[in-house]
């Protein structure tokens, strides 16, 4: 064909020249029929690919007008876009092809129902040769089979074993079990060692058998399929033999191992299983008696617990790091809560759920192992030990020996309250009145609630019952307090701790899902028990209390929600009582020792540094209300106040929040020791006291003549907090206040106040208003130091005197520091804000394509609208093209139909015409003949 060199060529000419240069057209090599058979056609498949690529390249380069270049708005360096230049023709072609395969197919099958889909491999691929097709299908079949044989179902198929015996029960191919031809090592002919392992085809196989190989290879190429197969079979037989050999060797080794195991086994089960083992061993050895009971072994082994794979045990370092991380995380969460931020957001990000709470996790890590009966061992003190402990109690405490359960005694006598109510009416200045404006029915309901509680608290602990009695090891989990009392009523306090420990082990949370409920029940029961124990007079020894607190602290994590709700209710009940008492103006104040103890417990069980806490915040309010409104007329009240102040300090220890009521109470109590109750001007400072409160404080005033009995400071006792029992009140009304307020006691209170003051100084010295808050204390301490020494300080315990002096010096130092370091406030130093402007915004390069609308939402709506329009246009276009395509197809079909009809008619006509012409010829001939005859 002519290869025109001129530039002004027609498109057709260009195409032709391009095709010829690419070697696609023009003189093709002559392919004989024989060649075709031998596989040149096979090579054609690769050629067609090549051809197609070439054609595509030609198509691409041929017509530059078919390329559509999309203009860019902005030129971004290094950004490559797919749609920079689009070949329109190609795209159109592709679209047409796609339509053919989708809409076209649909059209074809329009009125068809059912039918057969040909899924044979390569059946619809015109580029595949029949040979290739066959090979692929064979491969697929083999793969399927091999995967089946490797699956467990085939592995334990008993029928496979038949091969070993030589019975042909499996499928065969050319007399060979197909199951044994499990990889393609057998297929390729020669079998190198390295290839055998990998299962890949050998290099030689690849070179000879693969696509190009048949063409290039010399004589090998001429091997027929039959030859190849024969070779394969031979190889596979050889392999089979090898495998059998290996199998036999394995069997031998296993037998040896079994023999060894017999001896090891005897060592393993030396105790209980030894007898059957021995008998089995002897049986086998002697050859007589019972045969070696294989079945019994099997059965034993079935029931024996197998070792399960376990997570790797953590090294000490890892465990330590994990613990450190956990603590750090818990601290971080606490800090966040302290600032009033939700710690949950962080919790979610952490992998472990803090829902179980930090301590819950500690619990988890501590008890990684499932607790078993052995765990009890720690608590199983030997019987002798237990007895000793009980004996000790007998000697030291005696612990309410002989006290029996006393029920149903009303401790509040109503008359007192009524009297006090009248009193409070006159002293209406104090806030107590405005606070106590609770509606009367509420007030009435309180004693009803309180009475049974009192009764419960008055319950005596019978510790004497059974120190020699052995404790059982299992208990029923107590669901409520009565059940608990029934359970442990006969045991001593120490034994009760053991009972708790055993209960916790018995009903460990991992053992059963119901145990969570039981343990949280136990936790609540213990809380109640603690309340009861702290009400005991004489008090219960501290180790018992601490033991119970420890248990509560650990059990709280089981169900913190329930425990928290219980505590919240306890606080609410206590508040009701306190408020009732404040309203009535009663001296007792409605606060019990158990309330104080529980509050101390809450302060350490809960995260008390939180900014808001559902238990701690109401508790603080309750404490502060008590401290600021109660009239402290008894030593019990003052002791309660001091302990409550200590609790306040404990809750603010970390957060250092400011509690004015605590300071007011401390200062007022300090002032009470030296100030005259009659003279209000004497009580200078920032603590407002009503006349009534001042008069009540006379209790603490240290008189001139008073002397201390001992030179040592008298520490406060828990017993001071416990309200006098009604029984003792009846017995000896004169000595109802168990502790007579002597000078020792007063100095003890003074000392306690000073110690608490010191604590608060430590907590608050960084506060901006430290000076304002503590200057009154400085004056007060000066006053105490000035007034006391004149007549009394030589009588005072040395410790208190020293404490007074050190506190004074310390406070003076701190105040000086605070004065030196204080700077004026700069609370309003904010980031400067831009001044609002009304000048119109000027765009230096305004473009119509850019949207300058400052309204964000409107912008977004416009954008969405534009997208919708674009999509709609695209969809319309697609539909139109589809319609065009369908119309074209229909036209094509119509034409085809017309054409075939025309052909048919043509044929018919030609036949008819031929007949006609024959007939005419005949007629003519006949006429001729006739003429001729004639």
């Amino acid at each position, binding site marked *: 064909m002519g290869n025109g060199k001129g530039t002004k060529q027609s498109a057709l000419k260009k195409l032709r020249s391009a095709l010829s240069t690419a070697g696609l057209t023009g003189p093709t090599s002559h392919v004989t029929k024989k060649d075709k058979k031998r596989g040149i056609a096979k090579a054609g498949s690769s050629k067609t690919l090549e051809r197609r690529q070439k054609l595509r390249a030609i198509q691409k380069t041929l017509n530059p007008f078919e390329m559509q270049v999309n203009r860019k708005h902005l030129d971004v360096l290094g950004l490559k876009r797919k749609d920079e230049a689009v070949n329109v023709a190609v795209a159109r072609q592709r679209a047409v092809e796609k339509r053919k395969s989708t809409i076209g197919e649909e059209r074809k099958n329009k009125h068809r129902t059912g039918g057969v889909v040909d899924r044979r491999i390569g059946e619809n691929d015109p580029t595949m040769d029949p040979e290739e097709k066959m090979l692929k299908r064979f491969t697929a079949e083999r793969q399927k089979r091999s995967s089946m044989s490797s699956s467990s179902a085939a592995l334990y198929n008993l029928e496979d074993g038949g091969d070993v015996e030589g019975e042909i029960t499996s499928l065969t191919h050319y007399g060979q079990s197909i199951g044994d031809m499990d990889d393609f090592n057998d297929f390729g002919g020669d079998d190198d060692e390295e290839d055998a392992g990998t299962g890949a085809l050998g290099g030689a196989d690849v070179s000879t058998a693969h696509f190009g190989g048949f063409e290039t290879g010399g004589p090998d190429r001429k091997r027929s399929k039959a030859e190849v197969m024969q070779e394969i079979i031979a190889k596979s037989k050889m392999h089979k033999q090898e495998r059998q050999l290996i199998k036999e060797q394995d069997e031998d080794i296993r037998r040896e191992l079994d023999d060894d195991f017999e001896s090891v086994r005897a060592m393993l089960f030396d105790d209980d299983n030894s007898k059957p083992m021995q008998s089995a061993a002897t049986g086998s050895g002697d050859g007589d008696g019972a045969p070696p009971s294989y079945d019994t072994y099997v059965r034993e082994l079935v029931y024996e617990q197998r070792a399960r794979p376990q997570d790797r045990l953590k090294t000490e370092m890892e465990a330590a790091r994990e613990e450190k991380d956990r603590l750090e995380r*818990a601290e971080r969460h606490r800090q966040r809560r302290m600032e009033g931020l939700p710690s949950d957001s962080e919790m979610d990000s952490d992998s472990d759920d803090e829902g179980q709470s930090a301590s819950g996790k500690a619990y988890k890590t501590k008890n990684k192992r499932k607790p078993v009966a052995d765990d009890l061992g720690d608590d199983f003190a030997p019987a002798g030990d237990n007895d000793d402990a009980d004996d000790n109690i007998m000697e030291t405490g005696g612990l309410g020996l002989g006290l029996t359960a006393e029920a149903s005694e009303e401790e509040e006598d109503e008359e007192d309250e009524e009297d006090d109510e009248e009193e409070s009416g006159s002293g209406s200045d104090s806030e107590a009145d405005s606070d106590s404006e609770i509606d009367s029915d509420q007030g009435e309901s309180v004693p009803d609630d309180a009475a049974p509680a009192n009764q419960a608290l008055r319950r005596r602990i019978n510790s004497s019952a059974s120190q020699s009695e052995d404790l059982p090891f299992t208990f029923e989990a107590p669901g409520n307090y009565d059940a608990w009392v029934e359970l442990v009523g006969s045991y001593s306090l120490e034994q009760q701790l053991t009972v708790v420990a055993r209960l916790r082990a018995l009903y460990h949370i991992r053992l059963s899902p119901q145990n969570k409920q039981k343990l949280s029940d136990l936790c609540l029961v213990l809380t109640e028990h603690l309340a009861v124990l702290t009400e005991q007079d004489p008090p219960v020894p501290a180790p018992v209390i601490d033991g119970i607190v*420890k248990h509560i602290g650990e059990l709280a994590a089981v169900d913190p929600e329930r425990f928290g709700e219980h505590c919240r209710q306890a606080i609410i009940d206590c508040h009701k009582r306190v408020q009732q008492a404040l309203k009535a103006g009663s001296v007792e104040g409605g606060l019990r020792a158990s309330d104080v103890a529980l509050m101390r417990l809450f302060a*350490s*069980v809960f995260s008390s540094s939180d900014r808001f806490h559902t238990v701690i915040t109401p508790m603080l309010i309750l404490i502060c209300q008590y401290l600021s409104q109660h009239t402290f007329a008894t030593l019990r009240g003052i002791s309660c106040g001091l302990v409550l102040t*200590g609790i306040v300090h404990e809750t603010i220890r970390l957060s250092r929040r400011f509690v004015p009521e605590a300071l007011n109470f401390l200062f007022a109590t300090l002032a009470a020791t030296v100030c005259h109750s009659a003279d209000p001007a004497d009580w200078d400072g920032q603590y407002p006291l009503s006349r009534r409160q001042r008069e009540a404080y006379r209790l603490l005033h240290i008189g001139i003549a008073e002397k201390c009995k001992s030179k040592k400071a008298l520490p406060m006792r828990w017993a001071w907090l416990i309200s006098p029992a009604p029984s003792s009140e009846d017995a000896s009304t004169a000595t109802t206040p168990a502790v007579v307020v002597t000078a020792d006691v007063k100095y003890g209170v003074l000392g306690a106040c000073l110690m608490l003051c010191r604590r608060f100084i430590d907590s608050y010295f960084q*506060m901006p208003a430290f000076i304002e808050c503590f200057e009154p204390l400085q004056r007060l301490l000066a006053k105490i130091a000035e007034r006391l020494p004149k007549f009394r300080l030589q009588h005072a315990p040395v410790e208190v005197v020293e404490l007074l002096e050190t506190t004074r010096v310390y406070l003076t130092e701190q105040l000086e520091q605070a004065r030196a370091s204080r700077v004026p*406030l700069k609370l309003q130093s904010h980031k400067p804000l831009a001044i609002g402007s009304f000048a119109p915004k000027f765009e230096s390069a305004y473009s119509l394509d850019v949207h300058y609308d400052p309204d964000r939402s409107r912008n977004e709506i416009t954008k969405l609208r534009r997208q919708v329009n674009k999509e709609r246009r695209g969809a319309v276009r697609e539909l139109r093209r589809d319609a065009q395509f369908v119309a074209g197809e229909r036209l094509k079909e119509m034409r085809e139909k017309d054409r075939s009809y025309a052909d048919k008619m043509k044929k018919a006509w030609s036949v008819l015409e031929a007949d006609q012409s024959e007939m005419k010829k005949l007629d003519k001939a006949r006429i001729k003949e006739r003429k001729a005859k004639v």
Partner: protein
Amino acid sequence: MASKRKHSSTKEESKAVVDRIILLENNVVSSQQNLNDVVDILSIAKSGNVETMFVATNSLGRIFAGLWKQGLLKRNKDGKTAASTVSDWLRGNYNEYIGILKTQLKHSEAAIQVAALKLLMQAVVHEGENASKSSGSYEFPNSLYLSILELILDGSEASDHLLRTLADSYLNLYDDLRYYFYRDVAKIASPDYDPFKSGKSGARTKSLVEEAESFVRNTFAVMGMIKVVPTAKEYTAFWVNAIPPTGDESSVSNAAAHRKAFSEAWVAFLRQPLTAEIYKQVLLSMHRRIIPHMVDATGLMDFLSTAYDAGGSISLLALNGLFTLIDQYNLNYPQFYEKLYALFDRNLLHVKYRARFFRLFELFLGSSHLPAYLVAAFIKRIARLAISATPSGAVTAIPVIYNLLKAHPSCMVLIHRMPGYEGEESVDAESDPYLADEADPAKCNALSSSLWELETLQHHYYPNIATLANIFSEPFHKPKFQLEDFLDHTYTTFFDGDTARTPKKAPALAVQPPTALLRTGDAISDFLVL
């Protein structure tokens, strides 16, 4: 009735006596011949038990009412006729009857007191009508009324029931009674009133102080119960209304006269030595009930300024009345702000009336023309009080301070001080120039101090207060606080607010569970042995 408590035997006895009284009464009413039986009934009324006394006085009341109607009790001027002898004798008996009633006013039974009051009031009507008829113009028997009132108000025996009856069934309903009540109260309370002039109560000397106390108490109770205020133009409801009064200046129907009587009564009452409780009560209601109806409200100035100087809660209460005087009656009160400043003592945020006080305080400091030093002094004082106050006090103080700072931007230096402000070369960090004990707000140097107290409140244990105090660290864009929302908080409202909702989440537990009740190093373990 009291008679129910008697034994059955005495019951039968009294029954017989009652029957006799009825018989005698019928005798007297039926004919004038039996007038002598009045003496019998009088003796029964004097001596008998409660029931018979009650019946006897009642029947006497009916008898004398009839006699008044018949005109038999009218004084005869024509000398010694039989009729005048009879009327003199009857009048003697009548006076005796009135005397019995007056003693009954002091009876221990409230019911007897009330009954006696009712009969006495009837007597007042009869006497008044009689006097009006004889003179031909309006007359009010004030001497009788005065003696009745004096007995009621002075007596410590006067029951609540009696006082309530007096106020509700007479003073609140009848204008003339009220008018004369005010006049009589003023008369009794006036220092030159001589109780011995009437000569009836000889026992009065024995306990003047005690009587004065009960007078104050009873008078205040009755005056408190009078709901009608002198605002009407014309008064028409009269108890004694035989001849309606003419509408001249000093008459009972005149509005101005009523106002005058009201004012005089109150002024006279306030001169009395008041107990602390009544003092507070008067001050509480003064600006609403008294000052608006006074003829000359400035007359109360002395009383109020004395109260304002008294200090404590009395001052707080006086403030309201004083403010009304300053505000509406043009009272010029010198050194008002100094005295207001003095009210800010340590009790202020703890007392019951602080809500009322701060409402007024907002008014006083609402003016934008107040000097900055003054406002700063108040702000500093409130802040200083807030750090020792209860949460309810602090929650009041913070919005007050915010509003003040917002209204007086020149005081913003209190919370934000930069060097170079208003000619200050540098900020003196060394010492706080504020003088807490200085009584004069002009000299306390508050403007050169800072409100460290507020920064401390930002760390208050009660989270709501801490949050509220944080507004001082934010830009002052928020509008003024409505003070009403913050005034009525108490511990109880805080507690209830915190515990009302059941929490959704589990409460956070401590990082380290406790191992003992008292932590090692616990503040409590320093001084307490378990």
